[in-house]
């Protein structure tokens, strides 16, 4: 099997699976220990996007019209993010047959339909989402229930986009530690249900003219629905290409940033967040606009240097060589942010050439915690991958500022 001779040696373990002996090289964020670890591979990918692609002219019919002022702002946001089509799990009348768990379970069904392992071999299921169907229990329980899997270990990771990387890292570590030989990392989002006019009308968020503030409007025109899943195993797939997961780095900068994308609270005059539970009951919280997703767009721009700084750290640590990256999968929520990131990266001399960037944002929209897995699935199906190619994935999260990167290598099962 392919391996990186510069940093590790590969041996056959007692059980016959490939293992890495971690030496003194860079080996993740934790303390450097000498231990026998297996490698982890993404052997299969799948996605479930509800309904047909919806273009910009028709999207208003699905999320509904709040006011003419709101629609005007929406057109401005669409010019900035350049998303042309996306998928919605709601019908134009606001009803739906889907849930977040249902979308996740559908991606999981498609994943296993094409996998080389039986569903009974799955030992671990990690889910990622921004907002679960229920406040309690976690999404992994809902997906497990809907999936038909026998009893498994689960983990429900809830944040925003970076929760996908948390789920993937959990799956990778479970496999590398030998706790499970096959694991699933899955991301699912059903944002559109929060963007219907009923969520805003009659709340304190809307002014007398029916306009919403920009921070409440922005995400209505940015986020959409879907799910995607990855199968993580301790060996590459026998046929077809797999991704070896070389490393995953995730860091929170909540020590220096206030919440920037929020749901479930309201902001006081002084800017402090008041959780919905601190209002006089759920009805008062709803009336105050607590159950709306909001994005402080200015704060997003202040986070960009920090996100890029993490890439510089990985370059300095020798984990990323910008010139040696074959595919750069950068999750970004808007084309304008991508453009600003490119400008900054060029100035700082850490630019990964733009012809290596792979994105599906313009066709599939921003599907939050499912976005990274959608990118990997589309890349694997693109027929553009060759064994040995290096992939760097980047997932910034505006929530309260997280930056996650992952390094993958394309491997051919036949060569393993």
């Amino acid at each position, binding site marked *: 099997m392919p391996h*990186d001779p*510069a*940093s590790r040696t590969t041996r056959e373990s007692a059980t016959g699976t490939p293992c890495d002996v971690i030496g003194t090289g860079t080996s993740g964020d934790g303390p450097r220990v000498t231990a026998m670890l297996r490698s982890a591979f993404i052997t299969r990918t799948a996605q479930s996007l509800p309904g047909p692609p919806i273009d910009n002219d028709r999207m208003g019919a699905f999320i509904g019209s709040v006011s003419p002022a709101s629609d005007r702002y929406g057109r401005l946001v669409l010019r900035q993010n350049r998303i042309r089509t996306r998928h919605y799990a709601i019908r134009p009348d606001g009803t739906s047959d889907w849930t977040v768990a249902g979308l996740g379970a559908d991606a999981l069904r498609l994943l296993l339909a094409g996998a080389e392992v039986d569903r009974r071999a799955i030992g671990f299921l990690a889910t990622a989402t921004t907002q679960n169907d229920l406040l309690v229990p976690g999404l992994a329980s809902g997906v497990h229930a809907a999936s038909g899997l026998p009893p498994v270990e689960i983990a429900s990771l809830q944040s925003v986009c970076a929760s996908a990387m948390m789920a993937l890292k959990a799956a990778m570590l479970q496999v590398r530690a030998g706790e499970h030989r096959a694991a699933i990392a899955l991301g699912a989002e059903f944002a559109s249900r929060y963007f219907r006019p009923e969520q805003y009308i009659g709340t304190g968020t809307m002014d007398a003219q029916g306009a919403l503030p920009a921070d409440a409007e922005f995400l209505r025109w940015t986020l959409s629905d879907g799910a995607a899943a990855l199968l993580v195993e301790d060996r590459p797939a026998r046929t077809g290409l797999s991704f070896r997961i070389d490393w995953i780095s995730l860091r929170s*900068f909540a*020590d*220096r*940033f206030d919440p920037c994308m929020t749901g479930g609270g309201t902001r006081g005059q002084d*800017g402090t967040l008041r959780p919905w539970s601190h209002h006089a009951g759920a009805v008062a919280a709803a009336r105050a606009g607590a159950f709306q997703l909001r994005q402080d767009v200015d704060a997003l721009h*202040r986070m960009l*240097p*920090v996100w*890029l*700084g993490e890439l*510089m*750290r990985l*370059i*300095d640590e*020798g*984990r*990323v*060589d*910008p*010139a*040696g990256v074959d595919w750069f999968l950068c999750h970004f929520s808007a084309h304008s942010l991508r453009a600003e990131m490119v400008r900054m990266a060029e100035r*700082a*001399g*850490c630019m990964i050439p733009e012809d290596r960037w792979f994105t599906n944002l313009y066709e599939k929209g921003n599907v939050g915690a499912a976005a990274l897995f959608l990118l990997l699935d589309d890349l694997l199906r693109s027929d553009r991958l060759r064994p040995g190619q290096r992939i760097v994935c980047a997932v910034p999260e505006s929530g309260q500022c997280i930056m996650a990167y992952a390094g993958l290598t394309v491997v051919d099962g036949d060569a393993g």
Partner: protein
Amino acid sequence: MMTNDDPVAATHRGLARVWIDFESALVQVPVIARLVGGRLRIDDYRSLLRNLRQQVVEGGRWISRAAASFGPDHEDLRAMFVVHAAAEHRDYRLLERNYVVAGGTLEDIRSAHKNVGSEALSAFMYHSAAHPNPIGMLGAMFIIESLGNRLAGPWADRVAEQLDLPPDALTFLRYHAENDAGHMAEFDRAVALAATDATASATIVRHARVVARLYRLQLEELDNV
């Protein structure tokens, strides 16, 4: 995996990382949190000027000392430091004038002691400047000039929004906002001369890291003399 071996690029990347960490962490400093959060009082602004003055008054002197420490192999760097010292050595007078316009007295701002953070910062600057061929001082200058180039302008705007002050009370911040871009271009030329290998690069970045921390300490310790 390969690493980027170009020492000039590595220096710029290292400095950018130090700066990003420094700038994003500044919001944890109480006076900066009040400044950017719209809760600044005139006492805060006067305190900021009074504390900065005690460090700025030393600026021209440590740059001159560093210039004197460059030997014959670094004449170009020495010349740059001499020019820079001449440009900066009366900066503190702007702070004094701003302080008086903002309601303070000349006697107060001139007689104040360095706060404990300024003491540490100043001591490190003179200590480093006295070493032969002190190229690490470029890292120190990077932090000081970046403060002017990137933060002085926004800070001046925030002060002007919150406090009823005439433009004459903001000339120190405005001067640096307008002039430090030129200083940064000069700085890039100096790095190209100084960062000749990985050791030189690491020295410059390490000095930037130390100065960034000590500058933050200075802001954290306002009036703790």
